[in-house]
C-alpha cells in the first residue's frame, strides 16, 4: 500500500469524523437544549410518514442540510461579492484542518508498514494547532467586513478582539503544558500519558496541569465563539453578528465551522489532558489492571479500544461544551475582556512560572 493511499484514507477518515460529529452535535444540541429548557425539541423527522417512531437525528443529518442548501443564497447589495463568498471557506477551512495533527490511535502495523493513526506526523503538532486556531478569526472578520452591514462589522470587530485576547491565555497555558511534557509532538504527549502514577492512576495531563486544563478549555470555548462567549454574534444585540447577511449554504458553513471548532477543542483537551486515545490501564499487549494482574488482548482489539476511547472522550467534551452553552448566560463585552486579560492571562503566566520553577527544582531541565 502506498503512502499516498494511506494518507488519503486517513485524511478522509478524520474529515468524515469531524463533519459527522459536527452534524451529530447539532442534533445533540437541539435535543439537549430542549431537555434543559424542559421542552421536547426536534421531533418531526420521519420518512414519508411510514416510520412509526420519531427519527430525531435525521433532522440534522438529512433534513437540515437539505433545507439549508436549497435555500436562496442571498447576497446583499453593496457587499464585496468576492470576500462575501470567501468568508465561509475561511471560517470552515482552519476548523477542519486543525484536526490533522491530533492523533486518534497508536501506530499500527498494516501490511508490513507502520501507520501512525493521525493525518500528519508533525513534530510541532501543538504549534500547528495553535496556528490554525488563530486563523479562525479570518472567517468572522472578513464576513463582517464584506457584508456591508453595521451589525456584521461590529460583530467581526468584537470577534477579532475576543479571539486575539483569548489566544494569548491559551498560548501561555499551552506553554506550561509543553514544559511538563517536554515536547511539541502530540503523539509523544499521548504516549507519556500511558503510564500510571501511584500504581493505579492513569498519568493524564489533567492531574499535572489542572490550571492549564481549565484555561485551555475556557479559552477554547471562547475561540469557538459560542455562548457564553458569543458576543460576536449576540443575537439580542447584533441580530446575528458577523453572519447577519448570510443565508443558505454559506450560513450552514458558518454553523458547521462552529461545531467543527467544538470538536477541535474537545479533541485538543482530550489529547493534552485526558490521555488522548489511551484507554486506562491498556498497553499494547493488554490490560495491566492494578491489583488484578494482566489480561492479554489482541492487537486489533487494542486498536479498536483506543479508537473507541478517543471517540468517547471527544464526545464527552463536546457534550460538556453544549451543556455549558445552555447553562451560562452570555458575557458582557467588558466582563469578557476582564476575564481574558485580568483573569486568565495572569493565571496562565503564573502557571508557566510555577511549572518552570518546579521542573528546575526537580532537576529535570538540562
Amino acid at each position, binding site marked *: 500500500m502506498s503512502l499516498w493511499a494511506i494518507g488519503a484514507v486517513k485524511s478522509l477518515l478524520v474529515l468524515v469524523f469531524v463533519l459527522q460529529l459536527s452534524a451529530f452535535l447539532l442534533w445533540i444540541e437541539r435535543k439537549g437544549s430542549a431537555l434543559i429548557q424542559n421542552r421536547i425539541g426536534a421531533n418531526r423527522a420521519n420518512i414519508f410518514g411510514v416510520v412509526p417512531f420519531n427519527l430525531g437525528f435525521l433532522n440534522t443529518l438529512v433534513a437540515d442540510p437539505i433545507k439549508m442548501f436549497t435555500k436562496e443564497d442571498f447576497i446583499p447589495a453593496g457587499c*464585496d461579492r468576492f*470576500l462575501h463568498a470567501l468568508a465561509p471557506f475561511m471560517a470552515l477551512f482552519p476548523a477542519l484542518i486543525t484536526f490533522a495533527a491530533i492523533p486518534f490511535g497508536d501506530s499500527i502495523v498494516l501490511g508490513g508498514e507502520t501507520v501512525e493513526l493521525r493525518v500528519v506526523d*508533525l*513534530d*510541532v503538532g501543538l*504549534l*500547528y494547532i*495553535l*496556528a*490554525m*486556531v*488563530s*486563523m479562525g*478569526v*479570518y472567517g468572522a*472578520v*472578513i464576513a*463582517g*467586513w464584506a457584508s456591508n452591514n453595521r451589525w456584521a*462589522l461590529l460583530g*467581526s*470587530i468584537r470577534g*477579532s*478582539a475576543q*479571539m*486575539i485576547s483569548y*489566544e494569548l491565555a491559551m498560548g501561555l497555558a499551552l506553554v506550561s503544558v509543553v514544559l511538563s511534557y517536554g515536547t*511539541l*509532538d502530540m503523539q509523544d504527549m499521548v504516549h507519556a500519558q500511558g503510564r500510571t502514577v501511584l500504581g493505579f492512576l492513569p498519568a493524564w495531563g489533567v492531574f499535572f496541569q489542572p490550571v492549564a486544563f481549565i484555561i485551555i478549555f475556557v479559552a477554547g470555548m471562547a475561540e469557538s465563539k459560542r455562548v457564553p462567549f458569543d458576543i460576536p454574534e449576540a443575537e439580542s444585540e447584533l441580530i446575528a453578528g458577523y453572519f447577519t447577511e448570510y443565508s443558505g449554504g454559506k450560513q450552514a458553513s458558518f454553523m458547521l465551522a462552529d461545531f467543527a471548532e467544538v470538536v477541535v477543542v474537545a479533541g485538543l483537551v482530550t489529547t493534552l489532558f485526558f490521555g488522548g486515545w489511551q484507554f486506562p490501564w491498556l498497553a499494547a499487549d493488554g490490560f495491566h489492571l492494578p491489583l488484578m494482574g494482566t489480561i492479554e488482548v489482541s492487537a486489533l482489539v487494542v486498536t479498536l479500544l483506543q479508537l473507541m476511547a478517543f471517540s468517547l472522550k471527544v464526545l464527552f467534551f463536546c457534550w460538556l461544551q453544549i451543556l455549558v452553552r445552555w447553562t451560562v448566560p452570555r458575557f*458582557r463585552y*467588558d466582563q469578557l475582556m476582564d476575564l481574558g486579560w485580568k483573569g486568565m492571562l495572569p493565571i496562565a503566566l503564573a502557571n508557566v512560572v510555577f511549572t518552570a520553577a518546579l521542573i528546575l527544582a526537580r532537576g529535570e531541565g538540562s
Partner: protein
Amino acid sequence: MEEFSLSVAAFYFMAGLTLLGAGGVVFTENIVYSALSLMVSFFGVAGLYIFLNADFVAGVQVLVYVGGVLVLTLFAVMLTHQIAEIEVSNKSVGRVPALLICGGLFLVIAKALRGAEFFTTPGGQVSESSTYGIGNLLLREYILPFELASVVLLAVLVGAVVLSRKEVIAPDGTPVPERETIPLTEGQRVMSSPRAALAGAAAKQKVSDV
C-alpha cells in the same frame, strides 16, 4: 536550469505565492484586499520555511504573522473611519520616476546577485526537528538579543499606549485626561459600572444643590 522535480516545483510555487501576495499588497487599491494579499504572502513564506525543513519557524510564522499581526492590522483597518474608501488626493505621485528608479535598482541588484558566490556551509544531516535546536540557540547563544527583544516589545507597548491615548484640549489650553472626556449616556454608565453611575448621580446632585 535545474532538473525538474517535485521539490523544485514546490519551491517555485511557494516563491510565486510569496511574490504574488507581495504584489497584491502594493498594487490593490482596497486596503482590506491588501491585508489579505499579505496573508497569502505570509503563507508563501511559511511554505518556504517548511521547504527548508524549518517546521518550527513555519509554525511560528503562521501563528505570529497570520494569526496575530495581520488580524490586528485588519482590526485597526476596521476601527479607522472609512479607511477603505479614502481618496488619495494626489494620484500622480511620480509613478514613472519611481518605476524607473526601482526598476533600475532591481536590475542592478539582480545583475550583481547573478554573479555572486554565496557562502555555503557543508551540507550535513538535517536533524529531525528544529525545535530543540532553536530552543537551545535562543536561550544560550542568542539569549541577549532574545531578552533585548522583550525589552523592545515592552517599550513599544508603552509607546503605543502613550500615542493612542485620547486627549482633548480644554478651552484654557490644558490637556484633559481621558476618563473625563468620554461622554457616556446615563444608560451606558449604568451598564458599564452601576457603582460609578451612582457616584456620578450623587455628584450631579451636589452640583445642582450649589
